[in-house]
């Protein structure tokens, strides 16, 4: 390695000291890098940034002294102390990011050499990366890609001798990233991904998620969660289920105590509890947003589960681990099914009415049951009771008092799905019919562009299941008795109808159509939203959600029998080298003639060879010209300018454009005819 010790291998001898513009561009790049974080940082950061960066700018413009080591370290200690006060820790994601930003800011105070400037650029790149720990949206991705290109431009700017052509540098930085893109994509797809982290995640890594709760207490909250946030998206392999079939099962609540419905913790089942025919099975892929919970939502009755999932009580699905991230599951469900017999203890729980208070409601149930011929008839009687007694579907119902079921059934008679599911289930139990509550989602919006169904938080729903001896658990949705529009058109239609003061339950088809028809503007807005959601969904599916599972299925798809890390690495190395070799070949390809003067001279020789005078390889321009003139004295006026101009260029140290033009003109004029030879010879 003698070249390493070469005396010429200078490392820093000719670095340029960064100037004021370099500092300004660095400050701009810094602000662009931290901008996604600004809302999360303590407020005093703004003050710190203004003080530090103004100070720094003054140092360079107004010759203020650069702070000494003592001052810098004091500031650092104060900042760290303040950070600790704010976060109560210096570890973890939030405090770590704040610390990184603070340190970068303080680094501005000691900027001196090129190395300091470069270091700040590197720190900015790191800060950019930390933004992704908070959000991985498409917009943020694009924005930060632009910031990365700007940071590369700053790097170029700092290193470049001639600092005038900023736009050219931006272009070069962008093309550099673009040239690198194929390798980046290969790495992204083939770099072996671990399942789970290396060191475990700090506690603040997942926060601020909202979603469904695992208990239901009708009458305590007087406003339903109408968030437009997406709960999950579903792609179907088979045809789409109808609106009436779109019941997404989440949890089955069997315990009713003190007005609250809860899951029966003892009722964990170990296997599937239903019988079904293969014709009634529907397959779909569900992309569920992070919930920080374990439950998995599935259409109607799920019948299959993959590894990593388990059965919850009442034929529901659970994840083995808490879902901190979006999760994609491929599930099969049966739309027609029959539950097998249930155990004595299960039966007892589902008939438990010990928590129901109030005489009147018990009376009502008994009264209705006495009039019924069968359990099924009783169900219809109760549903008819809702329909015929001025029950209202209301998103802001009055609160229920001491006896919630009784108050609802006989007094307030206004509520949403939870009230109906809860009261209906209790009405069943009071008459001795086993019943339970299921919570989940109902409905969903079909995205034409993306061919998938969007289910939002506002689609949350609750309904009942009743045990009938001949058919097992049967789904009954009492809400549909009051507001069939809820099931048919979804919650957003309900909201519109309520806003317009329409009475639910007995609207004609035509009335509904006119009410629900959107204006062109809001329709196109809605379409755009759906389109954008489709783009986002693909983004999450193919980019954000990409992991080791996708890698394995991809390898299998490409026909690899085994799919393991070794194959990934071999493929990665091979393909990356291939891409780099191809890029190198394209970038280093040289035209056969490098020198434009040589190119012109070759045209001249070509024209001569066309009239039969061929230059031999050993012949210099002058010797060749002599021979040409010997053969064709008549060409003297044409040959000499070419040769003179060519020789002038060849021996000139610095070639002027003028000389080139001269040669090009001479060659253009050089058109030797064949005819004259014949004349001379004859």
């Amino acid at each position, binding site marked *: 390695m003698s070249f390493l010790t070469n005396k010429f291998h200078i490392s820093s001898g000719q670095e340029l000291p960064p100037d004021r513009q370099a500092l300004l561009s660095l400050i701009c790049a810094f602000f662009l890098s931290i901008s996604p974080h600004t809302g999360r940082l303590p407020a005093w950061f703004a003050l710190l940034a203004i003080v530090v960066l103004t100070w720094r700018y003054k140092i360079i413009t107004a010759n203020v002294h650069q702070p000494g080591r003592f001052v810098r370290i004091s500031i650092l200690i104060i900042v760290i102390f303040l950070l600790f006060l704010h976060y109560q820790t210096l570890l973890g994601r939030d405090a770590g990011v704040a610390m990184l930003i603070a340190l970068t800011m303080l680094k501005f105070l000691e900027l001196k050499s090129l190395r300091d400037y470069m270091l700040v650029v590197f720190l900015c790149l790191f800060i950019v990366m930390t933004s992704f720990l908070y959000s991985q949206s498409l917009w943020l991705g694009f924005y930060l890609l632009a910031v990365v290109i700007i940071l590369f431009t700053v790097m170029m700017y700092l290193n470049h001798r001639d600092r005038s052509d900023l736009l050219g540098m931006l272009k070069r930085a962008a093309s550099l990233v673009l040239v690198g893109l194929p390798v980046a994509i290969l790495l992204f797809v083939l770099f072996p991904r*671990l399942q789970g*982290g290396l060191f475990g995640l700090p506690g603040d890594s997942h926060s601020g998620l909202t979603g469904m709760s695992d208990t239901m207490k009708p009458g305590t909250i007087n406003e339903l969660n109408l968030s437009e946030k997406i709960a999950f998206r579903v792609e179907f392999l088979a045809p789409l289920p109808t609106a009436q079939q779109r019941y997404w099962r989440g949890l089955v609540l069997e315990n009713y105590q003190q007005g609250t419905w809860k899951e029966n913790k003892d009722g964990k089942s170990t296997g599937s509890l239903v019988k079904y025919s293969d014709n009634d099975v529907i397959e779909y892929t569900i992309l569920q947003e992070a919930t920080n919970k374990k439950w998995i939502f599935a259409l109607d009755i799920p019948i299959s589960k993959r590894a990593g999932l388990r059965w919850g009580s009442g034929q529901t699905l659970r994840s083995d681990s808490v879902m901190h991230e979006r999760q994609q599951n491929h599930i099969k469900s049966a739309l027609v099914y029959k539950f097998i017999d249930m155990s004595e203890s299960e039966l007892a729980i589902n008939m438990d009415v010990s928590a129901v208070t109030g005489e009147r409601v018990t009376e009502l149930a008994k009264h209705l049951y006495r009039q019924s011929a069968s359990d099924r008839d009783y169900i219809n009687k109760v549903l008819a009771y809702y329909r015929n007694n001025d029950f209202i579907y209301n998103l802001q119902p009055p609160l229920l008092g001491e006896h919630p079921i009784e108050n609802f059934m006989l007094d307030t008679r206004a509520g949403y799905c939870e009230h109906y599911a809860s009261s209906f289930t209790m009405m069943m139990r009071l008459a001795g019919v086993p019943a339970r509550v299921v919570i989940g989602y109902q409905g969903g919006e079909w995205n034409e562009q993306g061919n998938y169904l969007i289910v939002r938080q506002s689609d949350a729903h609750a309904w009942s299941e009743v045990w009938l001896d001949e058919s097992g658990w049967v789904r009954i949705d009492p809400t549909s008795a009051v507001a069939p529009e809820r099931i048919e058109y979804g919650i957003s239609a309900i909201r519109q109808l309520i806003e317009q003061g329409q009475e639910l339950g007995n609207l004609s088809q035509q009335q509904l159509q006119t009410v629900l028809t959107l204006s062109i503007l809001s329709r196109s807005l809605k379409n755009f939203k759906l389109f954008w959601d489709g783009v986002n969904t693909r983004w999450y599916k193919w980019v954000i959600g990409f992991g080791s599972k996708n890698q394995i299925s991809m390898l299998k798809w490409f026909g690899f029998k085994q799919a393991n890390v070794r194959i990934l690495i071999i493929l990665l190395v091979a393909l990356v080298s291939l891409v780099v070799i191809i890029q190198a070949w394209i970038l280093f390809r040289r035209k056969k003639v490098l020198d434009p003067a040589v190119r012109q001279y070759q045209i001249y020789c070509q024209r001569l060879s066309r009239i039969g005078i061929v230059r031999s390889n050993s012949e210099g321009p002058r010797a060749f010209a002599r021979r040409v003139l010997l053969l064709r004295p008549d060409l003297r006026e044409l040959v000499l300018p070419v040769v003179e101009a060519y020789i002038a260029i060849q021996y000139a140290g610095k070639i002027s454009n003028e000389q080139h033009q001269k040669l090009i003109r001479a060659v253009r004029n050089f058109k030797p005819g064949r005819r004259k030879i014949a004349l001379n010879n004859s």
Partner: protein
Amino acid sequence: MEEYCLSRKNLYMLPTRHGFIFSIVLLAMLLVAVNYNNSLAYLMSFTLFSTVLASMLYTQRNLDGLCISYGDCRPVFAGKTLTYTLILSNRTKRDRFDIGIEIKGEQSRRRDFSAYESLNIECSTTVKERGWYPLPPVQVNTRFPLGLLFSWCKPAELERKSLVYPAPAEWQDFPARYTGNSAKPGQSRSNNDDFSGLRQFRNGDSPQHIDWKTYARGKGLHSKEFHGGDMPQMIFSWDDAHGDKEQRISLLTRWIIEAGAQGIRFGLDMPGYKLEPSNDERQVTKCLNFLALY
């Protein structure tokens, strides 16, 4: 070798100090990405890595195809300043950025090259010893585009030498056997010489021999030719000079220069080398070449 063109055969590349720091930052990013299993953090680390990989190609390409050659270089006497021209030419359509040029004994330069641009660098160096003086090696380097990688060329391969004549000694009289009828140098000698005619001026002719009268008549430059009728014919021999080897060579050099300037027919008689007397214009060069390498 006439010309030294940079290609992957003579180009090397290593990360700069910034490059090393950057790779550490990159590794830290990858660790975060793995730990949080964060797709975009992965994608960003990979994008940065692949950009550096691409910049490797651009760094190399920035030098690839540049050609170094030396222009004219005239022999000088030892102790004088040797000037030579270095030609750095971009023979391609590509623009080159931030090319560093390192020549030993010269200040380092950095400049851009546009397409087909060729640069002449006038260099000078003081030479001390007679003989072949190898022109200092040239190294071309670049840190374009991001300053993370440093590429440079192997400098030794362009071997160009320049001849350095011995330093002439202080004036001493020609050997005693000739001094009898010879005047001191600088004195008019045209009276003693026989004018034999005019001939066309040739490069290298002494300006003292130019016939200014004909020039004034507008007939161009002509040199007067003399035939040393009574001009002595001198043969400088090794034994005529005194002192050690270098001193003798210096003295012989001085005599040859003077004799050449005066148009004296002279020859050289060295151990193992004998040059017949002549007043040919190339006689001086011949003798000096010989002495330079003796």
